[in-house]
């Protein structure tokens, strides 16, 4: 172990309360007390790690400092994706920072330190809700939420995708909340407070899961922070300050039953901070010895008020190392590097220490895949499973076409210029490279030229009252304005295959950035250093320094200097003019009404939060209300409503539908006949086919979303699984080797392909289905009303007319068949936004869009609100997209079909579902060799299927995972073209 105290990391001797290493390991942030404000500083990691970099003057040490917090900063934390930094302080605020890419280095004007800010970090949002000092902040896994806790006894969960939106406020602590930690699986968040308790909260419903008090009953509120930590395998939670036999400990809480049987003992004073190493380790294999299977273990650092630091391995009974007298005052925070081998510790005494461990000391860190498989074994598919991007990046690209798409993707990412890689590169190049860039041109003029003529060029006007008004020259635009949720969403929520969604969002933002540039008058491809202070200014300053020393020595009058000094800090109260009068009045007014206005504020806040809550309620439970509102204008347009049951309208000309084997009997009089219908069950399963063996499993009411109960349909075919969701309880199901059909309680019949693709839009039956049967590609249904219908999935319904109802559902008629087009809650939850191409507008005019109206948009918003588990949302999205496809087909809306097909393909690519993708490609390609027996039609709605495939292939090519699939179909298309 190596130990280093980089003396240059300091807040001018003021205490450092928090430290956090950036996920990419190139920089770290510290937070603490500034001169008389709070201070956040960002430091370069390289000079800590390498001595030569520390000595090299060209390597910047400090990258940025931010004085914006009005009082001491208690916590700084990087988001998991490294794009954002959150800080919380005594000014009751949480600030979220992002790096501004367009703006070059600058100094803090007038500050004594001449150190330039090499990187520019801007506050993009201020989160206000706490009424007391914010003590700790924490990003959830995958940056879905940001949590902050405060001495106001509350914990606030913020929507990290939509700052400054608040998700919830957790109340229950009766003392100052001083530490937070997320479960790595994302199921819980734990908090520790001065009220002698540690509480675990569920993220599902934000209710308290466990309240642990026993180990803390003897504790006094003597520590500034109580930073607890969750182990990377999720099995243990370790608290800060706890007591055992009146000795200070760090309590180990087991996930299983929240048992408190073990603790870390040995510190002489209260434990302030516990931090688990992000890696899971296994024993280092000694050279020559046979590999023995050993249990993986975790590593944990504990810091205390007794100024000492201990590092523990969960496989050892005693600490790995204890370091005393590292600091003069209490340890305040600890941060590990993502590699698990480095650690930064900060102290109230204003210093920072870096510890470097070797693999021999800690063991072999498990790879991400191994860690994922541990998670998968314990928790199943969970949030904790990180994307295997890293692994994919090492995959060899086998197809030149793929390479092309990959490069395009990378280019579009690079163009954004915000990407970590480019930003890091800019940082690494440092100040020495910025010098030549100073002469960059703007509108064909260098900044130097502009400055020379600024006085002549600047626009000066007179206001109505004769005052001078100068229009300043804009020399750079801030890029903090585009704090778009889209960009934030690029954080991979998807456990796999997020590459394409990243690419998409970056495309979106790259679309917008040239626009910005042009409005600036900058040429595209301008460099970010453009706006740094020109060299001339520096020279001026140097001259000034020389002269000033001369000047001061020759200055004869020394005494008035003191008197003059006072003038710098006084406000312009004596300044003659109208404005000063206004100022004083203003101030007075403020004083008079301050207490008054505070009260008002409080009440306004209350109102606001009340309103918000109301809205949430509406979104959650009031789906029907919302839909009705939207449906109303349409109802007027669509003219007559149908009070009668639908069965009466379906008068079928039977002969026209060749696939129909039998027509339902004439309606009304015959309905006395009632066949028995199966009763709904919670779950059931059946084997639909022996060869290939296909099993079907149905589970009703798996989840309630937006007020409607969802049912899950799982199918296993030759060991391959797929599942989908339906908005109503499944009553009966049937299948053949080609198709699967399920009938729901709401009299909807859904038909799926063997790979789980929805083949037909939901069919509305006149009465409940009594019997369902499938054979080859035919589906037969016998209803309770004794109507027998047979459909062929190869035929497509051509449905007109369309009837839209005020509840948001639409129906259309296809000779005898009534097709429900939409109106399920799926749309409320489907999250396909990441798959939407950037040119969204093109589809806004199709018949399907007209029918669905704004419901779709509502769905996009609502999807963010519902905290549905990821896999559920995935299924819902899939179900929704397939529904859209089928509906577009029925409505014969070719453009919309094409649009939804691409969205669907993109979603499949993102989610990595190869079977469905393959089936889709197969369907689009058709048989390569002509055969008479083939019933494949080369066109859909006038679109050539193979052309569609050509459009889909580039999408597939964007994910390296599917390069084999890509190559396969690319080759076949090529083959066909040559024919």
């Amino acid at each position, binding site marked *: 172990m190596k130990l280093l105290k980089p003396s240059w990391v300091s807040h001018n001797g003021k205490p450092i309360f928090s430290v956090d290493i950036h996920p990419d390991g190139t920089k770290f942030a510290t937070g603490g007390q500034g001169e008389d404000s709070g201070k956040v500083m960002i430091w370069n990691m390289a000079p800590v790690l390498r001595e030569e970099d520390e000595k090299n003057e060209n390597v910047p040490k400090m990258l940025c400092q931010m004085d914006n917090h*009005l009082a001491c900063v208690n916590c700084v934390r990087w988001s998991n994706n490294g794009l954002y930094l959150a800080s919380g302080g005594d000014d009751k605020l949480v600030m979220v920072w992002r790096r501004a890419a367009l703006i070059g280095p600058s*100094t803090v004007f007038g500050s004594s330190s001449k150190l330039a800010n090499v990187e520019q970090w801007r506050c993009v949002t201020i989160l206000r809700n706490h009424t007391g000092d914010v003590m700790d902040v924490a990003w959830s896994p995958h940056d879905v939420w940001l949590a902050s806790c405060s001495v106001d006894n509350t914990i606030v969960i913020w929507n990290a995708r939509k700052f400054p939106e608040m998700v919830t406020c957790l109340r229950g602590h009766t003392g100052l909340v001083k530490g937070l930690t997320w479960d790595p699986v994302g199921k819980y968040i734990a908090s520790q407070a001065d009220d002698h308790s540690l509480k675990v909260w569920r993220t599902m419903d934000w209710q308290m899961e466990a309240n642990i008090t026993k180990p803390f009953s003897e504790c006094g509120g003597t520590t500034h922070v109580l930073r607890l930590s969750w182990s990377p395998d999720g099995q243990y939670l370790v608290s800060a300050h706890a007591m055992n036999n009146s000795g200070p400990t760090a309590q180990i809480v087991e996930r299983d039953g929240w048992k408190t049987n073990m603790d870390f003992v040995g510190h002489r004073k209260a434990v302030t901070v516990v931090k688990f190493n992000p890696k899971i380790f296994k024993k280092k294999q000694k050279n020559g010895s046979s590999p023995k299977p050993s249990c993986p273990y975790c590593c944990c650092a504990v810091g205390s008020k007794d100024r000492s630091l201990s590092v523990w391995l969960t496989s050892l009974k005693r600490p790995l190392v204890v370091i005393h007298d590292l600091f003069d005052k209490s340890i305040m925070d600890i941060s590990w590097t993502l590699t698990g081998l480095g650690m930064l510790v900060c102290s109230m005494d204003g210093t920072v220490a870096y510890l470097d461990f070797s693999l021999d000391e800690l063991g072999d860190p498990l790879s991400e895949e191994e860690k994922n498989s541990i998670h998968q074994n314990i928790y199943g598919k969970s949030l904790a499973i990180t994307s295997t991007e890293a692994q994919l990046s090492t995959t060899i690209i086998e197809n030149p076409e793929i390479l092309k798409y990959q490069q395009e993707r990378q280019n579009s990412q690079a163009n954004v210029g915000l990407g970590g890689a480019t930003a890091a590169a800019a940082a690494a190049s440092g100040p020495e490279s910025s010098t030549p860039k100073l002469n960059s041109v703007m509108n064909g003029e260098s900044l130097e030229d502009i400055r020379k003529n*600024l006085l002549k060029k600047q626009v000066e006007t007179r206001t109505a009252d004769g005052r001078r008004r100068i229009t300043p*020259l804009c020399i750079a635009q801030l890029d903090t304005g585009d704090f778009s949720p889209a960009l934030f969403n690029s954080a991979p929520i998807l456990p796999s295959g997020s590459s394409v969604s990243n690419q998409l969002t970056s495309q979106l933002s790259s679309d917008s950035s040239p626009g910005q540039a042009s409005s600036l008058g900058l040429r595209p491809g301008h460099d970010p250093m453009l706006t740094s202070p020109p060299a001339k200014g520096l020279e001026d300053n140097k001259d000034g320094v020389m002269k000033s020393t001369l000047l001061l020595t020759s200055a004869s009058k020394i005494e008035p200097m003191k008197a003059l000094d006072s003038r710098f800090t006084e406000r312009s109260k004596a300044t003659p003019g109208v404005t000063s009068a206004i100022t004083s009045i203003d101030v007075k007014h403020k004083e008079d009404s301050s207490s008054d206005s505070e009260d008002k504020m409080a009440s306004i806040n209350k109102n606001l939060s009340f309103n918000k809550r109301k809205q949430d309620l509406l979104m959650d439970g009031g789906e029907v209300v919302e839909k009705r509102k939207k449906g109303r204008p349409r109802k007027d347009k669509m003219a007559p409503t149908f009070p009668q049951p639908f069965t009466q309208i379906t008068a079928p000309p039977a002969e026209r539908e060749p696939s129909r084997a039998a027509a339902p009997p004439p309606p009304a009089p015959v309905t006395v006949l009632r066949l028995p219908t199966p009763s709904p069950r919670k779950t059931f399963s059946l084997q639909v086919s022996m060869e290939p063996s296909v099993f079907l499993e149905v589970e009703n009411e798996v989840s309630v979303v937006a007020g409607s109960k969802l049912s899950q349909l799982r199918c296993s075919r030759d060991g391959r699984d797929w599942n989908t969701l339906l908005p109503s309880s499944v009553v009966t199901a049937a299948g053949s080797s080609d198709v699967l059909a399920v009938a729901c309680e709401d009299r909807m019949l859904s038909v799926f392909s063997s790979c789980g693709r929805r083949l037909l839009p939901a069919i509305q039956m006149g009465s409940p289905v009594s019997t369902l049967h499938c054979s080859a590609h035919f589906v037969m249904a016998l209803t309770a009303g004794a109507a027998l219908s047979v459909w062929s999935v190869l035929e497509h319904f051509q449905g007109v007319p369309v009837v839209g109802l005020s509840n948001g559902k639409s129906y259309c008629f296809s000779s005898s068949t009534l097709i429900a087009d939409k109106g399920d809650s799926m749309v409320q939850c489907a999250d396909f936004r990441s798959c939407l191409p950037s040119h969204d507008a093109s589809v806004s005019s199709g018949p399907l869009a007209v029918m669905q109206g704004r419901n779709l948009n509502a769905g996009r918003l609502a999807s963010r609100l519902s905290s549905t588990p990821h896999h559920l949302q995935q299924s819902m999205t899939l179900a929704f997209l397939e529904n859209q496809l089928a509906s577009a087909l029925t409505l014969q809306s070719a453009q919309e079909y094409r649009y939804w097909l691409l969205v669907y393909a993109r979603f499949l690519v993102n989610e990595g579902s190869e079977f469905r993708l393959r089936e889709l490609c197969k369907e689009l390609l058709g048989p390569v060799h002509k055969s008479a027996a083939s019933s494949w039609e080369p066109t859909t709605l006038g679109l050539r299927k193979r052309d569609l495939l050509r459009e889909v292939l580039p999408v597939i090519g964007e994910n390296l995972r599917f390069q084999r699939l890509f190559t396969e179909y690319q080759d076949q298309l090529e083959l066909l073209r040559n024919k």
Partner: protein
Amino acid sequence: MAKVQVLNVAVLDNPSPFGNPFQFEITFECMEDLPEDLEWKIIYVGSAESEEYDQVLDSVLVGPVPAGRHMFVFQADAPNTGLIPESDAVGVTVVLITCTYRGQEFIRIGYYVNNEYTDPELRENPPLKPDYTQLQRNILASNPRVTRFHINWEGSADKMEDGENVDPSPNISGMLPPSCVTGKMPPLGLMPDNSMDCM
């Protein structure tokens, strides 16, 4: 949090004869679009002893100010010599640049100014009545004194920003454990409560 940050002030035409106009090239950055103009002022301190002799050389409105980095040159005529006490004409004094938003001053930049005769003869034996035509003005550009004030950036209807400036209520700060107080006590008494002197 201040929405406008002054990034740099370059003193142009310096040193220069006393009668030349003042020229400051000001670069500032704005976090978000400002609905109202900024008002900049140059104040010449005639005498260290009294504010009575302060002269506002000029005041200009600067706007519109969208979010971004901007620069402009602020030029103002030399001070009216008739208003300067004769005894204070030669020697060190101060020029101030202030900026107000919605009538509230949020930054004050001060420079020492040395007024001197260029002629060694005059320097040795300065005339009783100052000869302003022979005086040279030298602004100590390298050493600005910057004082920032917290102000309410929102309209008067919205007191959100103002809330930040209110000191934490005594019961909350009283609840802080004693260990943390020592490190976090702001220096008292030296400056106005809401100022941040960056020297």
